[in-house]
């Protein structure tokens, strides 16, 4: 992984289209501004995990449900 040191207000460029601005540095969190083409999805990693988890959870079939119930009561 490439690691760069930046101060507040400084910018990193990725390719020609993506710009990342260190907007604010707080005590335990930083605010990051991202300028990217509209079609490029930008999400926090945990949002991606939750989306994937929801898609997996919604795929559970009725048979899975009854097995789960049996286990909980076991």
């Amino acid at each position, binding site marked *: 992984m490439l690691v760069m040191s930046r101060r507040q207000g400084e910018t990193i460029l990725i390719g020609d289209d993506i710009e990342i601005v260190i907007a604010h540095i707080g005590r335990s969190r930083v605010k990051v501004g991202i300028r990217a083409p509209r079609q490029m999805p930008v999400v926090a990693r945990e949002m991606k995990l939750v989306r994937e*988890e929801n898609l997996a959870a919604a795929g559970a079939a009725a048979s899975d449900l009854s097995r789960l119930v049996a286990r909980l009561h076991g």
Partner: protein
Amino acid sequence: MPVMETKNFGQISFEPDSELEFPSGLPGFDSRRRFVAVRFAESDPLVYLQSLEDPELCFITMPILAVDPLYKLKVSGEDLDQLGLPPARQPSIGEDVLCLTVLSVRETGPTANLLAPIVVNLRNRRAVQAVAPESEYSHQFALMPQEASVCS
């Protein structure tokens, strides 16, 4: 009483005021806004979150405190705003909000998503899936980790 079509349970009726509104849907299901929480005595403590807009969409959930009695709920300011709750303090589970964890059934056993609980404002039935950005909770918490080693 209104009736809904469901894939898993056939046709079931529900109390109109038991309808939950997710103003922004759920991650992965952004356009699904209306759900009903369904419980059956025989599958207690499970709560089925059945979509009113898609008969095939049903999440299996259970009260988060049944998975982790010490669960510490942390809802972001943005989510509190969606729920119509004051930003000044965290809601209390059972008093202000209902808090459910979404279950997945995997080959290794069921897991609970503790990273992003479903939070329902008990006063206005508005709901969000609250992704806690600085949470140390797992999105795949194993419900019965000991089960893998049980011999039959």
